[in-house]
């Protein structure tokens, strides 16, 4: 029997391309059966997306052959049929929306099939219903939420009734609840017989697949069932990847002498096998370390803000938000997409001014429109979400030097050098590089350096880890710690609690334009109800500690924010 997708000795290099650089894809061989669910993992820039684009003929191999259902993808006459067979959902869903209303966007792919209007309308409404977008049918796509846009993108693909769907990191812009719902949808499609190729940075998502293909430097590095792949922890570490959190923790518990079975890769599986405590020690709930009477640096009260106020498209983003941040702390700001995190951050550096309410930052009354934005910016830095999409210079050095030039600072060259060193970019090697030649990870570093160069007292980050591989993520967390050591006050907005829990001292949770709670990180993380009500998910480490306590383990508050702390504490009692 022949396979649905057959890839033989595929290699690819774009033209023009520097001679000294190796091919982006090198002799890839892969056979994929009808109905398979393949996860593709690999570091940023390893060639995953380039590989995926070969399956639907967006790129043609420069060596080797790709066949889908017997169609050679390099032959132009096969393209129309190929595009009907293979659908693709991109990383940034907004980029694949073509039409100016939701229903017309779904129709776009069907119009290309030259179907009669009546059939197009039927299929569009079927997909609108399945994607839960009926109420949005006539709305313009740029006014949808992130989750809705991603559902729309998938609906547009599904309407064409493909046999294969390619996903390129489709969840990187979604918050946990929306992400779970989206993954659920994909699993359902898989069960219904759809063949799925799925690029992801999240190992927890990769487990869902039948088979994982690991790509590194344009080659298939490993491939096999999830269990086989995640048993090769060492190899994965070598190429900057990691095993799922649950698998990592299982190993730590095994090292501690617990009998945790092999093949524990999901949170549920791990929680179910955690052992009972046999010792005598009792758990005492300590009061969390308090009483550090630090100065309040950011003070916001009852802040209101409405986008496009006074127009039919007006949208209330903040509805009475309160926030206090103490000097010298790293504070997390968590909430789902659309909860108002970004809007709140933009009020702290004066980009937005509240329509109502109080904003004090250090000695600045930001709510007063007469307070100069430039003066505030000197003291408050803000790194936007996906900052690499907002570059406006051509060269790395110029981009980073933009800020100091605005303030007519001296020694700009030294400042650029220091900022680049701080984020881990070599000054001599990178200063003259053109921005578009950088990889995604390098661009992110340039964006960080271009804010850090202003050496502000307060630093705000909006979803700084979105779309980062595990290695880059850890480097970034280390950078935050270093900045705190230098005395900075840091606020990190994210829709995930687990990523910054280890380095934050306090956490603020937002929902529907309001701050629900600000608390010491320890206290807040154990408030499952609060976290779930805000549409967020409880970090796995917290779930483990809670289960261990249920099982009688006397684990104290300060011992549970990182797996290493936890294991160290438990060593004493085993």
């Amino acid at each position, binding site marked *: 029997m022949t396979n649905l997708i057959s890839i033989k000795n595929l290699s690819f290099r774009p033209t023009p391309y520097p001679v000294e650089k190796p091919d982006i894809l090198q002799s890839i061989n892969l056979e994929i059966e009808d109905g398979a669910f393949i996860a593709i993992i690999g570091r940023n820039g390893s060639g995953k997306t380039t590989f995926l684009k070969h399956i639907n003929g*967006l790129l043609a191999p420069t060596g080797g052959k790709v066949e889908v259902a017997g169609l050679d993808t390099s032959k132009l006459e096969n*393209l*129309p049929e190929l595009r009907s067979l293979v*659908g*693709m959902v*991109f990383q*940034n869903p*907004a*980029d*694949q*929306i*073509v*039409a*100016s*209303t939701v229903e*017309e966007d779904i*129709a*776009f*792919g*069907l*119009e*290309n*099939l*030259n*179907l*009669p*209007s009546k059939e197009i309308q039927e299929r569009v409404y079927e997909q609108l219903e399945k994607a839960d977008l009926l109420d949005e049918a*006539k709305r*313009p796509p*740029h006014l949808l939420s992130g989750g809705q846009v991603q559902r729309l993108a998938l609906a*547009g*693909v599904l309407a*064409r009734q493909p046999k294969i769907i390619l996903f390129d990191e489709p969840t990187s812009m979604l918050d946990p609840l929306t992400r779970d719902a989206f993954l659920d949808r994909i699993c359902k499609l898989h069960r219904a017989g759809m063949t799925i190729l799925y690029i992801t940075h999240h190992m927890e998502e990769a487990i869902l697949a039948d088979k994982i293909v690991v790509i590194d430097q344009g080659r298939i590095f490993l491939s096999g069932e999830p269990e086989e792949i995640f048993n090769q922890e060492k190899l994965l570490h070598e190429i900057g990847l990691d095993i799922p959190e649950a698998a990592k923790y299982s190993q730590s518990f095994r090292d501690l002498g617990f009998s945790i079975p092999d093949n524990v890769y999901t949170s549920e599986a791990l929680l179910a096998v955690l052992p009972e405590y046999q010792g005598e020690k009792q758990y005492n709930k300590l009061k969390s370390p308090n009483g550090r009477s630090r100065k309040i640096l950011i003070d916001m009260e009852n802040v209101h803000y409405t*986008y*496009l*106020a006074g127009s*039919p*498209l007006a949208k209330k983003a903040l509805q009475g938000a309160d926030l206090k941040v103490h000097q010298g702390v790293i504070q997390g700001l968590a909430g789902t997409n659309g909860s108002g995190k970004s809007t709140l951050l933009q009020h702290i550096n004066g*980009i*937005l*001014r509240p*329509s109502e309410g109080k904003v004090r930052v250090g000695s600045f009354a930001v709510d007063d429109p007469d307070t100069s*934005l430039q003066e505030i*910016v*000197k003291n408050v*830095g*803000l790194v*936007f979400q996906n*900052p690499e*999409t*907002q*570059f*406006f210079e051509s060269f790395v050095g110029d981009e980073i030097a*933009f*800020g*100091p030039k*605005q*303030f007519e600072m001296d020694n700009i060259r030294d400042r650029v050098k220091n900022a680049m060193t701080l984020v881990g970019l070599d000054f001599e090697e990178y200063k003259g590089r053109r921005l578009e030649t950088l990889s995604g990870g390098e661009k992110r570093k340039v964006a960080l350096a*271009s804010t850090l160069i*202003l050496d502000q007292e307060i630093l705000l980050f909006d979803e700084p880890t979105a779309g980062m591989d595990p290695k880059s993520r850890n480097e970034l967390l280390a950078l935050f710690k270093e900045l705190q050591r230098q005395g900075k006050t840091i606020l990190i907005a994210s829709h995930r609690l687990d990523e910054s829990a280890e380095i934050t001292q306090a956490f603020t949770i937002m929902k529907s334009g309001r701050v629900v709670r600000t608390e010491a990180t320890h206290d807040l993380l154990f408030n499952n109800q609060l976290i779930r009500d805000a549409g967020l998910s409880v970090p796995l480490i917290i779930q483990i500690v809670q289960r261990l306590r249920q099982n009688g383990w006397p684990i104290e508050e300060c011992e549970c924010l990182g797996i290493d702390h936890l294991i160290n504490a438990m060593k004493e009692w085993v």
Partner: protein
Amino acid sequence: MSSRFEFLGSTSLGQFIPRDSWFHARDPRARLISFFIVFTALIFTPGKWGLLLGIFFVIGLYSLAQLPVKSTLRGIKKALPFILILAILQILFYQRSDNASPLLEVFGFVITNAAVDSALNLIFRFLVLILLLNAFVMSLSTSQLTAALFHLLKPFEKIGLPVNDLTMVVQVTMRYLPLIAQNAEKTAKAQAARGADWEQKGFNPIKQAKRVIPLIVPLIVTSLKRAETMAVAMESRGFNAAHKRSSFHSLRYTWQDGLLILVSFLLSSLMLFSGAIF
């Protein structure tokens, strides 16, 4: 307080107001043709009688399509200074025939009755055009517009007009404008967050222009990049201009649509030939 970074708010897009009116129920092609005919007539009508008819048409249209007048008046308020300047220029530099009687003389400029007349005509013409343009935007959605264009141009495919591509260009442009506004907003904010002076203090056109220039280049670059991704996305969804495409909207043409066009046509003819008739 609205933010100085809200570029999206200043685009006049998405002002379509869905209403359950006789006019809204007409075939988009009929509405497009009617607007086109009346626009042409308004521009070319020679005198005040034609404009008066135009005003009647616009008033009728607003009440028929249940359109709000308030936002339109706001638009007129913004345009008024420019129209007045044009009118004054018209009065001052009016081409005088020799036997015209001078009304009065100011600083050596001779002002005639005919000049004032033509200035008033100009003011009226602009006001009615603005009213009609607003009615057009409010009563024809972008999707109806593209569908109407697609079907109206379809017959010209035979003589080699790339109708698919043309309507696609219109559609993608409509999708693109708000994206560009959003992009401009992001880039402006990113520049401001790194110290660029984006604060509006008083009226200073030079400073304002200086601020906008550094936005333009990055905006073009990001727009081109987005266009590239969008092109890839369109390709992956089977868009290939060489092939036949169908349309989501099935349009149905009834006698009432014909009536709309007929009325517009008669009215426009009256406007154009009003000089000869009245």
